[in-house]
């Protein structure tokens, strides 16, 4: 019994994406840093689960209840959680002696399915795709207030530059106080040029200027910042469409990529954000920030289940290097190793 207890405990412990996210994706150095920060979360979940699964060898209602709690507590979302649990319940009812170790395998399969269905192409590095006529590749960065758009742009600029690309940044957040100054600091850190106007100027005009400079100087990639906006404000959402339209005057395909930044600690509203921003700007990729907090990896699972938009980047700290390309295979592996 002692051994079984240990196995189950380890399994449930391993299950929680909160700290699992930290396990496989990051280099040992970063992993150490994260592990330290996450120890509190680990303990509390660990305690919670170990109390209930004492003496269990098969998957019963208690184990499933616990699974539910772990998934929901990681912001996976009720619908996705229910779907996962229902599938497992079905298997359990078909096979009377399904043990907890098999549950592990089963879960891995389910989550793998959810993550991989919508994300077929995995990239390992910061790559700038080819464009028509060798024009710069335009990335427009959008999101609600305070999710970390400007910081993500700074980190991205640094990574692209490091990869040998010539990068331009457009200071399109002309609304928030000192947003331009903030981006300027990041541009200096990454050592890339920034195109800006005064606070309060027209963001579409800033975007236009940026593209014009980038084209003239044969840049490879352009990052356009935008002001944070809540997705239920129609006028502000329309403004984004306008920025897009104006850019298309210079490059018909622009923006090649619309990157929606989501705060990793956001709950179910993240789904609504993804939906509304997609409606207004046809979001093509997602960045999940602040995952160094308690690493809410659960959002990744929920979002991948409900949307066809791939998670491309994850932010794991305030340093300029603390942005990583999200690798789904590694993510799933790390959940269950």
């Amino acid at each position, binding site marked *: 019994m002692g051994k079984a207890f240990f196995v189950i405990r380890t399994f449930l412990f391993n299950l929680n994406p909160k700290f699992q996210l930290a396990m496989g994706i990051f280099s040992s150095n970063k992993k150490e840093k994260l592990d330290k920060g996450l120890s509190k979360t680990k303990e509390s979940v660990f305690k919670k689960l170990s109390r209930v699964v004492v003496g269990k060898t098969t998957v019963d209602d208690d184990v499933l209840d616990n699974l539910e709690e772990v998934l*929901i507590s990681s912001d996976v979302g009720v619908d996705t959680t229910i779907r996962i649990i229902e599938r497992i319940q079905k298997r359990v009812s078909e096979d009377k002696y399904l043990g907890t170790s098999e549950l592990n395998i089963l879960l891995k399969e389910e989550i793998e399915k959810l993550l991989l269905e919508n994300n077929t192409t995995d990239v390992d590095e910061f790559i700038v795709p080819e464009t028509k006529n060798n024009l710069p590749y335009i990335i427009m960065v959008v999101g609600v207030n*305070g999710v970390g758009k400007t910081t993500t742009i700074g980190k991205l600029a640094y990574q692209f530059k490091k990869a040998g690309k010539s990068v331009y940044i457009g200071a399109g957040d002309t609304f928030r106080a000192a947003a331009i100054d903030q981006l300027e600091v990041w541009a200096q850190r990454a050592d890339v040029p920034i195109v800006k106007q005064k606070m309060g100027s027209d963001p579409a005009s800033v975007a236009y200027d940026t593209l014009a400079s980038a084209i003239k100087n044969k840049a490879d990639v352009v990052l356009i910042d935008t002001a944070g906006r809540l997705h239920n404000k129609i006028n502000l959402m329309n403004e984004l469409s306008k920025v897009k339209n104006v850019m298309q005057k210079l490059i018909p395909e622009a923006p090649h990529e619309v990157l929606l930044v989501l705060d990793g600690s*956001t709950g179910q509203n993240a789904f*609504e954000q993804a939906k509304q921003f997609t409606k207004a700007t046809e979001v093509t990729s997602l960045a999940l920030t602040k995952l160094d907090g308690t690493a809410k990896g659960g959002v990744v699972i929920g979002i991948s289940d409900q949307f066809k938009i791939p998670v491309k980047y994850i932010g794991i700290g305030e340093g300029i290097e603390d942005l990583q390309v999200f690798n789904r295979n590694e993510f799933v592996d790390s959940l269950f190793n």
Partner: protein
Amino acid sequence: MFENLSDRLDRSFKLLKGQGRITEINIAETLKDVRKALLDADVNYKIAKTFTDKVKQEALGQDVLNSVKPGQMMVKIVHDELAKLMGGEAVDINVKGNPSVILIAGLQGSGKTTFSGKLAYLQKTKKGKMPLLIAGDVYRPAAIDQLKVLGEQIGVEVYTDMDSKDPVKIAKDGIKYAKQKGFDLVIVDTAGRLAVDEQMMNEIAAVKKAIDPQEILFVVDAMTGQDAVNTAKEFNDRLNFDGVVLTKLDGDTRGGAALSIREVVNKPIKFVGTGEKMEALDVFHPERMADRILGMGDIVSLVEKAQEQFDSEQARKLQKKIAKNQFGFDDFLSQIQQIKKMGNLKDLAAMIPGVGKALKNVDIDDDAFKGIEAIIQSMTPDERDNPVIINGSRRKRIANGSGTSVQEVNRLIKQFDETRKMMKMMSGGGGKNLARMMNGMRN
């Protein structure tokens, strides 16, 4: 994405109809729905569980009254319990010291700097204070500039020390400066920090120790998910803060974090941020938050909106008439006109629980009332005051006069009768009557 809870409850309570009492068995399905609604709203898993248990105890054995739908009764129990949990006496912030010192803390991107500006503005314009803002975020690029720009906008001085990277020193020096210059309120903005960042949490604890603030406010994004509980607890363990500020409530988040935080740290929510403008700061309304978490639509706002528009004298007269069952077609007409004054019909209707969903696929434009108005205007004053006299031949005349059919006239009179009955039955607040009236008109 989220199904409206009251709709869901209405549905599951169809099963309950005809059963006289709420029992363990007939409540099970409903409680499941309540729990799901809470989880969808980001209420913490554990708290959602304890909460539904509590509601169950509250509801068991209660008689299902004939006059209300059981679903509504259940919504009321859930709603009241929620409001009770989050509510209590409204607590103001403590600004008694001279200068009184307020420390602002929270995660990155929660809106601390914006809130600091709003609070300074509020204290300056509404409370006659002379506030000083201290820029204590030495980490995020341009955070100090941001506060400076806000300070300029609202005409409040900002204390900065560009040479120092030590928030403790900046805060202390800033307060010293405030004393010298006669500021009577000091608001200390700080850098965003994660609750799990030991070093940064030590730092804010050190700031607290050094300046001994009268008031510590924890700023949290209303969209925060399940982790709100851990974050709030961690900050509270370190700082023992006095109140919570819920930001970005002008979004469409259901804001279950409010309930979670309240439950975990038992500290009042003192302010809510409702926009990017400096005036967009509000006190916390537990009732409205309860509506919001349940996805009930903001019925309170509707009532308030209605109250603004309705002339109170007129409303009083109307109340009397309803009580005496003298509510006539003229009153009906003036109510319709009042509704039209309030704005877009569909928007208004959507604010009423249960109605929103029913109207989702119905195209109502403001012309919806045109036929009704025409019919009423074709009635004689006698007929309007005393609708019982409208017999067959009068109906025919009214139909001709209004360019409608007898069937349409019949329908309106029937609806009017029902409305009148309902109004009499619940001759209470104006908003409720309105809701019923709109309901009646849909049929």
